[in-house]
Protein backbone atom coordinates (compact mmCIF):
# COMPACT_ATOMS: atom_id res chain seq x y z
CA UNK A 1 0.00 0.00 0.00
CA UNK A 2 2.49 2.55 -1.13
CA UNK A 3 0.02 5.36 -1.54
CA UNK A 4 -0.62 5.79 2.14
CA UNK A 5 3.01 6.16 3.08
CA UNK A 6 3.99 8.38 0.21
CA UNK A 7 1.00 10.61 0.37
CA UNK A 8 1.40 11.16 4.04
CA UNK A 9 5.07 11.98 3.63
CA UNK A 10 4.45 14.34 0.73
CA UNK A 11 1.74 16.02 2.69
CA UNK A 12 4.04 16.50 5.61
CA UNK A 13 6.78 17.94 3.45
CA UNK A 14 4.31 20.36 1.89
CA UNK A 15 2.92 21.33 5.24
CA UNK A 16 6.35 22.08 6.45
CA UNK A 17 6.99 24.35 3.51
CA UNK A 18 3.76 26.17 4.15
CA UNK A 19 4.45 26.35 7.82
CA UNK A 20 1.31 24.48 8.66
CA UNK A 21 1.24 22.95 12.05
CA UNK A 22 -0.18 19.51 11.80
CA UNK A 23 -0.98 18.77 15.35
CA UNK A 24 -3.11 15.75 14.76
CA UNK A 25 -2.98 12.95 17.23
CA UNK A 26 0.43 11.54 17.77
CA UNK A 27 2.01 9.08 20.08
CA UNK A 28 2.06 11.76 22.72
CA UNK A 29 -1.19 10.82 24.33
CA UNK A 30 -0.85 8.66 27.34
CA UNK A 31 -3.33 6.14 26.11
CA UNK A 32 -2.76 2.53 26.88
CA UNK A 33 -2.01 1.74 23.26
CA UNK A 34 0.74 4.06 22.10
CA UNK A 35 1.45 4.57 18.43
CA UNK A 36 4.83 3.04 18.83
CA UNK A 37 6.89 0.79 16.66
CA UNK A 38 4.65 -2.03 17.75
CA UNK A 39 1.74 -0.64 15.82
CA UNK A 40 3.84 0.11 12.83
CA UNK A 41 5.07 -3.43 12.79
CA UNK A 42 1.54 -4.74 12.78
CA UNK A 43 1.06 -3.03 9.44
CA UNK A 44 4.30 -4.29 8.14
CA UNK A 45 2.94 -5.96 5.07
CA UNK A 46 1.92 -2.49 3.94
CA UNK A 47 5.40 -1.20 4.21
CA UNK A 48 7.32 -3.68 2.19
CA UNK A 49 8.02 -1.22 -0.54
CA UNK A 50 8.82 1.79 1.52
CA UNK A 51 11.65 2.79 3.75
CA UNK A 52 11.33 1.19 7.15
CA UNK A 53 10.58 4.33 9.07
CA UNK A 54 7.63 5.14 11.24
CA UNK A 55 4.62 6.13 9.25
CA UNK A 56 4.88 9.76 10.17
CA UNK A 57 8.48 10.32 9.13
CA UNK A 58 9.56 13.09 6.82
CA UNK A 59 11.37 12.46 3.56
CA UNK A 60 14.20 14.95 3.91
CA UNK A 61 17.56 13.75 4.91
CA UNK A 62 20.75 15.73 4.91
CA UNK A 63 20.28 19.15 6.32
CA UNK A 64 18.73 19.18 9.73
CA UNK A 65 15.88 21.62 9.87
CA UNK A 66 13.42 22.79 12.40
CA UNK A 67 10.92 19.98 12.62
CA UNK A 68 8.33 21.68 14.73
CA UNK A 69 5.46 21.19 12.31
CA UNK A 70 6.11 17.55 11.60
CA UNK A 71 5.39 14.60 13.79
CA UNK A 72 8.05 12.04 14.08
CA UNK A 73 8.21 8.88 16.04
CA UNK A 74 11.44 7.03 16.15
CA UNK A 75 10.83 3.43 15.34
CA UNK A 76 12.27 0.95 17.77
CA UNK A 77 12.07 -2.64 16.68
CA UNK A 78 12.24 -4.83 19.71
CA UNK A 79 13.86 -8.17 18.75
CA UNK A 80 11.44 -11.06 18.87
CA UNK A 81 12.96 -12.96 21.77
CA UNK A 82 12.83 -9.79 23.82
CA UNK A 83 9.21 -9.36 22.84
CA UNK A 84 8.64 -12.79 24.27
CA UNK A 85 10.25 -11.66 27.50
CA UNK A 86 7.80 -8.79 27.65
CA UNK A 87 4.87 -11.10 27.15
CA UNK A 88 6.11 -13.52 29.81
CA UNK A 89 6.74 -10.54 32.05
CA UNK A 90 3.14 -9.44 31.52
CA UNK A 91 1.95 -12.93 32.25
CA UNK A 92 3.93 -13.32 35.47
CA UNK A 93 2.90 -9.99 36.90
CA UNK A 94 -0.65 -9.46 35.74
CA UNK A 95 -1.90 -13.01 35.35
CA UNK A 96 0.01 -14.92 37.96
CA UNK A 97 0.32 -12.20 40.54
CA UNK A 98 4.06 -12.57 40.78
CA UNK A 99 6.79 -9.96 41.09
CA UNK A 100 10.37 -9.49 40.04
CA UNK A 101 12.52 -10.10 43.06
CA UNK A 102 14.24 -6.86 44.05
CA UNK A 103 16.85 -5.58 44.19
CA UNK A 104 18.07 -6.93 40.90
CA UNK A 105 21.56 -7.91 40.02
CA UNK A 106 22.64 -6.92 37.52
CA UNK A 107 20.65 -3.71 37.84
CA UNK A 108 20.06 -1.16 35.10
CA UNK A 109 23.24 0.72 35.99
CA UNK A 110 25.27 -2.46 35.73
CA UNK A 111 23.75 -3.34 32.39
CA UNK A 112 24.45 0.09 30.93
CA UNK A 113 28.02 -0.07 32.19
CA UNK A 114 28.51 -3.53 30.73
CA UNK A 115 27.25 -2.32 27.41
CA UNK A 116 29.58 0.66 27.41
CA UNK A 117 32.51 -1.63 28.12
CA UNK A 118 31.45 -3.91 25.31
CA UNK A 119 31.18 -0.98 22.92
CA UNK A 120 34.47 0.53 24.02
CA UNK A 121 36.23 -2.70 23.22
CA UNK A 122 34.65 -2.75 19.80
CA UNK A 123 34.93 0.91 18.86
CA UNK A 124 38.07 1.97 20.64
CA UNK A 125 38.12 5.56 21.73
CA UNK A 126 35.08 7.20 20.18
CA UNK A 127 32.44 6.23 22.67
CA UNK A 128 31.37 9.75 23.54
CA UNK A 129 28.10 9.42 21.70
CA UNK A 130 27.28 6.05 23.15
CA UNK A 131 28.13 7.30 26.61
CA UNK A 132 25.78 10.23 26.28
CA UNK A 133 22.97 8.05 24.98
CA UNK A 134 23.39 5.64 27.85
CA UNK A 135 23.18 8.52 30.29
CA UNK A 136 20.01 9.50 28.50
CA UNK A 137 18.59 6.02 28.92
CA UNK A 138 19.39 6.01 32.61
CA UNK A 139 17.82 9.42 33.01
CA UNK A 140 14.66 8.33 31.23
CA UNK A 141 14.53 5.14 33.24
CA UNK A 142 14.83 6.84 36.60
CA UNK A 143 12.16 9.35 35.74
CA UNK A 144 9.82 7.08 33.82
CA UNK A 145 9.80 4.00 36.02
CA UNK A 146 7.27 5.14 38.62
CA UNK A 147 5.30 7.13 36.07
CA UNK A 148 4.73 4.69 33.25
CA UNK A 149 6.73 1.48 33.60
CA UNK A 150 4.99 -0.32 36.44
CA UNK A 151 2.05 -2.63 36.42
CA UNK A 152 -0.49 -1.83 39.07
CA UNK A 153 0.45 -4.69 41.35
CA UNK A 154 4.07 -3.58 41.40
CA UNK A 155 3.46 -0.23 43.01
CA UNK A 156 3.54 -1.42 46.56
CA UNK A 157 6.86 -3.12 45.96
CA UNK A 158 8.14 0.05 44.34
CA UNK A 159 7.40 2.15 47.38
CA UNK A 160 9.07 -0.38 49.55
CA UNK A 161 12.34 -0.35 47.64
CA UNK A 162 12.57 3.11 46.15
CA UNK A 163 12.45 5.92 48.64
CA UNK A 164 14.50 8.98 49.53
CA UNK A 165 17.38 9.27 47.13
CA UNK A 166 17.36 5.77 45.77
CA UNK A 167 17.42 5.65 41.98
CA UNK A 168 15.31 3.03 40.26
CA UNK A 169 18.30 2.20 38.06
CA UNK A 170 20.05 0.75 41.10
CA UNK A 171 17.11 -1.43 42.08
CA UNK A 172 15.49 -2.66 38.90
CA UNK A 173 16.98 -4.67 36.08
CA UNK A 174 16.53 -5.84 32.52
CA UNK A 175 12.85 -6.70 32.90
CA UNK A 176 11.86 -3.13 33.60
CA UNK A 177 14.51 -1.64 31.35
CA UNK A 178 12.94 -3.49 28.48
CA UNK A 179 9.60 -1.90 29.21
CA UNK A 180 11.25 1.48 28.79
CA UNK A 181 11.94 0.63 25.18
CA UNK A 182 8.26 0.09 24.57
CA UNK A 183 7.74 3.67 25.70
CA UNK A 184 10.83 5.15 24.12
CA UNK A 185 9.20 6.53 20.97
CA UNK A 186 6.68 8.43 23.04
CA UNK A 187 9.32 9.95 25.26
CA UNK A 188 11.51 11.00 22.38
CA UNK A 189 8.55 12.56 20.62
CA UNK A 190 8.84 15.44 23.06
CA UNK A 191 12.32 16.30 21.86
CA UNK A 192 13.07 17.86 18.56
CA UNK A 193 15.88 15.91 16.98
CA UNK A 194 17.26 16.23 13.48
CA UNK A 195 16.42 13.53 10.99
CA UNK A 196 19.91 12.13 10.53
CA UNK A 197 20.65 12.24 14.20
CA UNK A 198 17.43 10.43 14.94
CA UNK A 199 18.42 7.67 12.54
CA UNK A 200 21.80 7.31 14.18
CA UNK A 201 20.20 7.31 17.58
CA UNK A 202 17.79 4.64 16.47
CA UNK A 203 20.68 2.47 15.29
CA UNK A 204 22.47 2.83 18.57
CA UNK A 205 19.36 1.94 20.52
CA UNK A 206 18.89 -1.12 18.33
CA UNK A 207 22.45 -2.15 18.98
CA UNK A 208 21.76 -1.90 22.67
CA UNK A 209 18.67 -4.07 22.34
CA UNK A 210 20.66 -6.63 20.41
CA UNK A 211 23.14 -6.66 23.24
CA UNK A 212 20.32 -7.35 25.68
CA UNK A 213 19.13 -10.15 23.49
CA UNK A 214 22.54 -11.72 23.12
CA UNK A 215 23.03 -11.69 26.85
CA UNK A 216 19.51 -12.44 27.90
CA UNK A 217 20.36 -15.51 29.89
CA UNK A 218 22.51 -13.51 32.27
CA UNK A 219 20.40 -10.38 32.31
CA UNK A 220 16.83 -11.57 32.58
CA UNK A 221 15.05 -13.60 35.22
CA UNK A 222 13.44 -16.82 34.14
CA UNK A 223 11.08 -16.89 37.07
CA UNK A 224 9.41 -14.34 39.27
CA UNK A 225 8.36 -14.59 42.88
CA UNK A 226 4.90 -14.94 44.27
CA UNK A 227 3.79 -11.75 45.89
CA UNK A 228 2.11 -13.64 48.66
CA UNK A 229 4.20 -15.30 51.34
CA UNK A 230 2.56 -18.67 50.74
CA UNK A 231 3.41 -18.60 47.02
CA UNK A 232 6.98 -19.79 47.29
CA UNK A 233 8.75 -20.44 43.99
CA UNK A 234 7.81 -19.32 40.54
CA UNK A 235 6.90 -21.64 37.76
CA UNK A 236 10.43 -22.00 36.51
CA UNK A 237 9.75 -21.01 32.93
CA UNK A 238 12.84 -21.52 30.88
CA UNK A 239 13.70 -18.73 28.47
Amino acid at each position, binding site marked *: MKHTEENVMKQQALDRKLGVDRSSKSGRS*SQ*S*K*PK*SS*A*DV*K*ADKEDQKNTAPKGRKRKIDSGV*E*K*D*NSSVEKLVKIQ*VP*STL*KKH*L*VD*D*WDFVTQQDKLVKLPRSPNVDDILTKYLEYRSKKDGI*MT*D*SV*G*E*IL*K*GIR*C*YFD*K*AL*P*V*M*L*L*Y*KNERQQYHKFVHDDVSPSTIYGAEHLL*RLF*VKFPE*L*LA*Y*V*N*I*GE*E*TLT*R*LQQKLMDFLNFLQKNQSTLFLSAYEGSRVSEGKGKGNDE
Partner: protein
Amino acid sequence: MEGGRAKEEEHDGVSVHSPCKAPPSSASSLPKEQHEVELELRLLEALEIYPPVKLRGVHRHFVLYGLMEFLQKSLDRHFSPDEVLQLLDRFYNLEVLKPDDEEIDTLNHEEDFCLPQSYFVKEEP
Protein backbone atom coordinates in the same frame (compact mmCIF):
# COMPACT_ATOMS: atom_id res chain seq x y z
CA MET B 1 33.42 42.05 15.49
CA GLU B 2 31.99 42.01 18.95
CA GLY B 3 30.10 39.19 20.48
CA GLY B 4 27.01 41.37 20.18
CA ARG B 5 24.99 38.94 18.15
CA ALA B 6 25.05 36.46 20.95
CA LYS B 7 23.08 38.95 22.99
CA GLU B 8 19.96 38.86 20.86
CA GLU B 9 17.93 36.47 22.88
CA GLU B 10 14.66 34.68 22.69
CA HIS B 11 15.21 32.74 25.84
CA ASP B 12 14.04 34.17 29.12
CA GLY B 13 16.08 34.05 32.23
CA VAL B 14 19.31 33.67 30.38
CA SER B 15 22.24 35.90 30.84
CA VAL B 16 24.55 36.01 27.91
CA HIS B 17 28.21 36.64 28.00
CA SER B 18 30.18 37.82 25.05
CA PRO B 19 32.84 35.36 24.09
CA CYS B 20 35.76 37.31 25.38
CA LYS B 21 37.94 34.34 26.01
CA ALA B 22 40.52 33.42 23.43
CA PRO B 23 39.30 30.60 21.24
CA PRO B 24 41.07 27.27 21.53
CA SER B 25 43.74 26.96 18.90
CA SER B 26 42.85 24.70 16.07
CA ALA B 27 44.76 23.10 13.28
CA SER B 28 42.61 24.93 10.75
CA SER B 29 44.28 27.15 8.22
CA LEU B 30 41.51 29.72 8.61
CA PRO B 31 42.34 32.86 10.53
CA LYS B 32 41.29 32.38 14.11
CA GLU B 33 38.60 35.05 14.01
CA GLN B 34 36.89 33.59 11.02
CA HIS B 35 37.00 30.18 12.57
CA GLU B 36 35.52 31.55 15.71
CA VAL B 37 32.71 33.23 13.82
CA GLU B 38 31.86 30.04 12.02
CA LEU B 39 31.77 28.17 15.28
CA GLU B 40 29.41 30.71 16.76
CA LEU B 41 27.17 30.62 13.72
CA ARG B 42 26.94 26.87 13.70
CA LEU B 43 26.22 26.82 17.36
CA LEU B 44 23.37 29.28 16.93
CA GLU B 45 22.03 27.19 14.08
CA ALA B 46 22.24 24.13 16.25
CA LEU B 47 20.40 25.86 19.02
CA GLU B 48 17.43 26.51 16.78
CA ILE B 49 16.87 22.80 16.78
CA TYR B 50 18.17 22.12 20.26
CA PRO B 51 17.19 25.00 22.52
CA PRO B 52 19.38 25.38 25.60
CA VAL B 53 16.38 25.11 27.88
CA LYS B 54 16.07 21.46 26.91
CA LEU B 55 19.49 20.91 28.39
CA ARG B 56 17.94 21.21 31.81
CA GLY B 57 15.35 18.52 31.58
CA VAL B 58 15.03 14.79 31.35
CA HIS B 59 15.85 14.80 27.65
CA ARG B 60 19.10 16.65 28.15
CA HIS B 61 21.42 13.83 27.17
CA PHE B 62 19.65 13.28 23.89
CA VAL B 63 19.65 17.00 23.23
CA LEU B 64 23.36 17.10 23.94
CA TYR B 65 23.87 14.13 21.67
CA GLY B 66 21.99 16.00 18.95
CA LEU B 67 24.20 19.05 19.43
CA MET B 68 27.31 16.91 19.24
CA GLU B 69 26.18 15.31 16.02
CA PHE B 70 25.14 18.61 14.47
CA LEU B 71 28.39 20.37 15.25
CA GLN B 72 30.47 17.42 14.20
CA LYS B 73 28.77 17.35 10.88
CA SER B 74 28.83 21.08 10.22
CA LEU B 75 32.35 21.71 11.42
CA ASP B 76 33.83 18.42 10.37
CA ARG B 77 35.52 17.57 13.61
CA HIS B 78 34.79 15.66 16.74
CA PHE B 79 32.99 17.33 19.62
CA SER B 80 32.84 15.71 22.99
CA PRO B 81 29.87 16.34 25.29
CA ASP B 82 32.10 18.44 27.53
CA GLU B 83 33.34 20.54 24.65
CA VAL B 84 29.78 21.27 23.61
CA LEU B 85 28.83 22.25 27.13
CA GLN B 86 31.87 24.48 27.43
CA LEU B 87 30.98 26.11 24.17
CA LEU B 88 27.48 26.76 25.39
CA ASP B 89 28.80 28.07 28.63
CA ARG B 90 30.48 30.88 26.74
CA PHE B 91 27.14 32.11 25.52
CA TYR B 92 24.60 31.01 28.06
CA ASN B 93 24.29 30.68 31.75
CA LEU B 94 22.74 27.23 31.83
CA GLU B 95 22.12 27.23 35.57
CA VAL B 96 19.45 29.87 35.38
CA LEU B 97 17.40 28.04 32.79
CA LYS B 98 14.32 26.39 34.12
CA PRO B 99 13.27 23.03 32.67
CA ASP B 100 10.68 23.13 29.96
CA ASP B 101 7.13 23.20 31.18
CA GLU B 102 6.03 20.74 28.55
CA GLU B 103 8.30 18.19 30.02
CA ILE B 104 6.83 18.51 33.42
CA ASP B 105 3.58 17.38 31.88
CA THR B 106 5.07 14.39 30.06
CA LEU B 107 6.33 12.68 33.08
CA ASN B 108 3.93 13.72 35.76
CA HIS B 109 0.98 11.86 34.41
CA GLU B 110 1.15 8.52 36.17
CA GLU B 111 -0.28 5.53 34.39
CA ASP B 112 0.08 1.78 34.61
CA PHE B 113 2.32 0.12 32.10
CA CYS B 114 0.43 -1.51 29.28
CA LEU B 115 1.98 -3.82 26.74
CA PRO B 116 0.66 -3.02 23.27
CA GLN B 117 -1.54 -5.61 21.65
CA SER B 118 0.90 -6.27 18.82
CA TYR B 119 3.37 -7.86 21.21
CA PHE B 120 0.90 -10.67 21.75
CA VAL B 121 0.56 -11.42 18.08
CA LYS B 122 2.62 -14.31 16.85
CA GLU B 123 4.97 -13.21 14.14
CA GLU B 124 4.94 -15.16 10.93
CA PRO B 125 8.27 -16.07 9.42
